[in-house]
């Protein structure tokens, strides 16, 4: 086993990895950019090395600087977290060639699965389902008819030259095909200057379902079941859960999608942790999309339900040890839900809200886990992803998990910057979400619909009294207010007055 490991990341995921290392009795080395000197990961690690200025390109993406930090501290391995260099085959290769173990899959596997088209090719080779269709423009109606009949209605016409909904038409049966091609083609022509369109299977109200796999370097590979990540905004996951509510109504789903995932992963001799992403329709039919050759943000929900510590396994596997668990050992108990707590303003088009956390209280108690990367007094820098923490909960049933999430969100207090906590509270009370009736468009529809509730009268009174007592005390004692906005770039004045 390693005695010292460098964590080439920041924020909550660096803290998560450092915690695993500490539990394993392995010394941890944090790296930090100049604006992250006071970062929580720097405080939590046994050692810390500055790797450059604030821009990621000069620090967290700076391969030379990171490898130098590893050499200087004598780290034997590097955990890349997610994002930054985690899916960079060049970095993985440079580590390997530099005699430092990269905690992840082989750089070859990263390279092969790194592009969507490469991954799709692998999937097709092993006979895994991908979204059926043709990437080439259709030349005439007869050809379109043949393709549509082959992939089955409904189908979707898409413009070859562009996106954004222009030149797009859903076709429910063959009778609609001819006029739809004409309309789509005309629209594409005027929008993009090319009338070319192609055909794809239309997946209505698709769900994003992914499979966690874990393999050692001796050829053992298992899957840890599915996660549902359909609650997205602009293709960014914000709520994830394990298991998928779809696996209640479609009991065969887990085994089928799990085996498909393993088939694809085996084709590239995959090892360490990885995730295969699928689109599924509401009946549970699924299509492979792409692979993430790293730890996912949402790994805690799988950890809750399977009881496995994925980061610990990543490190153990990278040290050359064998996977001592077999597919038949994996049990899934209860349900876990995760909300990604972002420094962003749902009232203001989800604009990032960096600044100083003047008050910060995390929830605790039964069934609640917070993977945080911040603390009260920390100034969230402008330069990076605005993820503050991940709040995950577990319950014996999905209903209990959601009730627990509502309770935990109630306890979560963040002042000084704006977060999406309030949005999650409303979402956790939404009938469709509670029923597990999810699709990748649900959150957008939810955001468009929801109206601000009037605050309760007594709550308003409590606010006024607390404010008055606070103000009176500050004035009469000449006491400095609790927290001034030093270092805060967000101007409340401007925000409230001008951006409504």
């Amino acid at each position, binding site marked *: 086993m390693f005695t010292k490991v460098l964590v080439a990341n920041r924020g909550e995921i660096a803290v998560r990895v450092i915690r695993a290392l500490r539990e394993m009795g392995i010394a941890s080395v944090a790296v930090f950019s100049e604006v992250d000197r006071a970062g929580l990961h720097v405080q939590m690690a046994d050692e810390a090395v500055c790797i450059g200025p604030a821009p990621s390109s000069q620090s967290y993406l700076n391969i030379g600087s990171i490898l130098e930090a590893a050499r200087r501290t004598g780290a034997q391995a590097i955990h890349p977290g997610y994002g930054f260099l985690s899916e960079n085959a060049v970095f993985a290769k440079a580590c390997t060639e530099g005699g430092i173990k990269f905690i992840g899959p082989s750089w070859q596997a990263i390279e092969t699965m790194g592009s969507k088209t490469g991954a799709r090719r692998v999937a097709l080779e092993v006979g895994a389902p991908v979204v059926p269709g043709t990437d080439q423009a259709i030349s005439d109606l007869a050809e379109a008819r043949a393709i549509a009949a082959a992939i089955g209605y409904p189908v979707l016409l898409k413009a070859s030259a562009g996106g954004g909904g222009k030149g797009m038409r859903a076709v429910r049966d063959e009778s609609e095909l001819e006029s739809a091609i004409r309309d789509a083609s005309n629209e594409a022509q005027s929008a993009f200057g090319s009338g070319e369109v192609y055909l794809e299977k239309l997946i209505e109200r698709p769900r994003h379902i992914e499979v966690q796999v874990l393999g050692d370097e001796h050829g053992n590979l298992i899957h840890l079941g599915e996660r549902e990540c359909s609650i997205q905004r602009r293709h960014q996951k914000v709520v994830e859960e394990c298991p998928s509510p779809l696996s209640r109504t479609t009991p065969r789903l887990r085994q089928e999608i799990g085996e498909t995932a393993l088939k694809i992963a085996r084709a590239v001799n995959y090892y360490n942790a990885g995730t295969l992403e699928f689109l599924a329709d509401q009946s549970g039919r699924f299509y492979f999309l792409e692979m993430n050759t790293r730890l996912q943000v949402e790994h805690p929900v799988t950890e809750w339900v399977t009881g496995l510590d994925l980061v610990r396994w990543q490190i153990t596997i990278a040290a050359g040890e064998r996977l001592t668990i077999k597919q038949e050992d994996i049990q899934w108990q209860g349900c876990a839900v995760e909300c990604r707590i972002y420094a962003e303003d749902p009232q*203001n*088009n*989800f*604009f*990032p809200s*960096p600044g100083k956390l*003047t*008050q910060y*209280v995390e929830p605790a108690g039964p069934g609640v886990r917070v993977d945080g990367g911040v603390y009260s007094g920390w100034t969230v820098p*402008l*330069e990076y992803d*605005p993820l503050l923490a991940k709040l995950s909960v577990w319950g014996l049933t999905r209903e209990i998990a959601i009730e627990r999430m509502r309770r935990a*969100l*109630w306890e979560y*207090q*963040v*002042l*000084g910057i*704006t977060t999406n*906590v*309030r949005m999650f*509270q409303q979402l956790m009370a939404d009938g469709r979400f509670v029923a597990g009736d999810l699709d990748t468009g649900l959150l957008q529809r939810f955001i468009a619909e929801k109206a601000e509730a009037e*605050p309760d*009268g*007594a*709550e*308003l*009174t*409590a*606010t*006024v*009294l*607390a*404010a*008055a*007592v*606070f*103000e*009176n*005390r*500050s004035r009469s004692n000449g006491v400095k*207010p*609790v*927290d*001034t*906005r030093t270092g*805060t*770039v*967000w*101007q*409340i*004045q*401007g*925000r*409230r*007055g*001008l*951006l*409504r």
Partner: protein
Amino acid sequence: MRLRVEVNGKVFELSLQRHGNGSDYTYVLEGAENKAEPASVVEVSPGVFSVLLGTRSFTAYLSKDRERLEVSVGSERHWVSLSDRRDRRAGAQANAASGPAEVRSQMPGKIIKFLVEPGSAVKAGQGLLVVEAMKMQNEMKSPKDGVVAKIQGYEGATVNAGETLVVIE
């Protein structure tokens, strides 16, 4: 103590009396439905207040930014400003909306595009320009109906937080 309190734009008159040196108060909040009522308010840690209204319990988290307080109670966040009852400035501030309005950049970023020109007539809520920060684009909107009096900066320019970009009259 008599105060003029503005919460989320609504104005209340508060009269608050403390009993002894403890946490007990009597208050009248005009503008809301409250009559003279007893309350208990105690600061449990810096900026955190436990408030009991009769038996109902609330915890308020406070953070101060210049003239305004940010107060979080349960899952709601409120913006509160307080002033002495006869404070002239308070009245003046409340009427600020009738003068010219300056649209300022909220954080360091880059001007992507102006959507209006000097002299354009604009409506409240209409987009004025697009600014990019943290790889996200954001449309800044007009706070009121009016005419664009001035535009500062140019497309592609880097701006600092608080810089005035557009003035509406």
